[in-house]
């Protein structure tokens, strides 16, 4: 089973839920797909076994064959190529690696070469295997790296994915083809607003989901009313406690320190499984 933990609003506790659940369930693969700001390792403290660079394919223009006809630039939907009469300029950060320019070139002057965008890191802590991506600073495109992380999924295992924040392409790539999505929110106007957007995205993608309310007790009750009206199951509530916030700040998963939480996270995972099988 593949479960993603996501949230439209940042800082609601995605990583905390993903890591605590992974530790409580044991034998799982934990994937951190928040490749812009991966944080799961800061809570899990894994031994890192190895690092693998991740590349995307980008065009390489053979100047001797190139006629500066501009067909490649005309084809490119991302403005990554610009043909001046003297030279075709390539802006690698804009390239989506679609390969269209190689097809468009009438002289076969374009081949593809690898360009590094980040790295995969492999580690483990006890029974939890952690794999995460780290985007090189200055690289705009998270999606190819997220795909590389997700390629590591072992289908016969339980997989928990820590998703990136927001509701656009990186999140969509992460939750695509997962069995269930746990949406972490907080009972505040920002939490609710961003939850509503994420719910629309998941419904459009037909991924089943439930909600975890973190910092329960702050803000207002509107998140609960919304979930009730929309018939969205609330799978777990984590109360606002200064102690939990302090443990998080030190990089300690709170289920290791506070009693009952290991069982609660096991129940959360079990409930998720039940909903998937339903």
């Amino acid at each position, binding site marked *: 089973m593949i479960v993603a933990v996501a949230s*439209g*609003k*940042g*800082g*609601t506790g995605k*990583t905390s839920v993903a890591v605590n659940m992974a530790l409580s369930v044991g034998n799982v693969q934990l994937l951190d797909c*928040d490749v*812009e*700001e991966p*944080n799961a390792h*800061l*809570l899990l403290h894994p031994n890192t076994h190895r690092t693998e660079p991740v590349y995307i394919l980008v065009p390489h223009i053979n100047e001797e064959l190139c006629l500066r006809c501009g067909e490649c630039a005309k*084809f490119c*939907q*991302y403005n990554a190529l610009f043909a001046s009469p003297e030279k075709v300029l390539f802006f690698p*950060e804009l390239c*989506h*690696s*679609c*390969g*269209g320019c190689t*097809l*468009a070139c009438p002289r076969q002057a374009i081949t593809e070469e690898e360009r590094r965008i980040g790295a995969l890191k492999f580690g483990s802590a006890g029974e939890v295997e952690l794999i995460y991506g780290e*985007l090189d*600073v*200055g*690289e*705009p*495109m*998270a999606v190819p790296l997220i795909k590389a992380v997700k390629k590591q999924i072992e289908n016969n295992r339980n997989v928990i994915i820590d998703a*990136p*924040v*927001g*509701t*656009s*392409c*990186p*999140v*969509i790539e992460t939750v*695509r083809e997962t069995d269930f999505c746990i949406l972490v929110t907080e009972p*505040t*106007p*920002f939490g609710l*607003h*961003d939850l509503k*957007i994420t719910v*629309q*995205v998941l419904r*459009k*993608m037909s991924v089943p989901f439930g909600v975890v309310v973190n910092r329960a007790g*702050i*803000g*207002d009750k509107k998140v609960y009313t919304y979930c009730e009206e929309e018939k969205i199951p609330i799978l777990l509530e984590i109360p606002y406690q200064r102690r939990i*916030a*302090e443990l*998080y*700040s*030190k*990089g300690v998963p709170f289920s290791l320190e506070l009693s009952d939480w290991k069982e609660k996270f096991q129940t959360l995972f079990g409930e998720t499984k039940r909903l998937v099988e339903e």
Partner: protein
Amino acid sequence: MKQLTILSGKGGTGKTTITASLAFLARKAVLADCDVDAPDLHMLLHPEVIKTQEFKGSKLAVIDKTKCDNCGFCREKCRFDAITKATEVDPIACEGCGVCAAICPADAITMIVRISGYAYISKTKYGLMAHASLNPGEANSGKLVTLVRQNARILFEKENSDLIIIDGPPGIGCPVIASVTGVDIGLVVTEPTMSGIHDLQRALQLLAHFNVKSLVTVNMHDINFDNTEKILRFCEENSIEVVGRIPFNPKVIEAMVNGKSIVEYAPESDVAKEIENIWKRCRASLNLGNG
């Protein structure tokens, strides 16, 4: 024209709370909400939309089933896995590159322009605001950010203003890059947690990469004094000015529930006083005088 972007790397550190407060304190700045995925600033500033504009972010492949002979060539060539086994286009996966349309032997695929969201120009109590909403599941948030910033510049030209304040998205990827390129200052809001520190460092590297001057503020600094100390030391070693340390105060959430910025809701609170201080130091850093 001066431009200030509030960013954080890590989400939920208080970007929007601070942006709304700075908007209140600045009075005449032009505002831009560049967190187009999950925009929240409008919940504190209550903009009244005066102009709506369609955002045509990308194209979408459409297969004419009467011409398609299911050869599967498009599926093979698509790098985004956007053609399903039944030779249909998955609109969520399609990035609009046009490869399938170019290679289809039956000429069955055309590319259509899709509306990925909307950009807005609005009036608020504190000045004009450019903002946007991305349709659920749409890509190209970086392009939409660029459109919001263009709109903000147009508003700036019309208004007698001295500053554009930009609420940035979390992360360090394409919409964040689009929010910080060419601005005068990036104010990074962090928190004294392990992830806050980690993400702060990556956000600062990003700003350095694009030659943007950075300032730092620590939010909820009293949650973990040791980590706050680490942040201060790190910033000192790297010659980065820390412009404020905001204490934890439940009034911030109360203000949010009431749809107000904290400086408006509780002007005498410790948080509001510290944000006023941050505003003064940002102004000084932007060479805007004492306003």
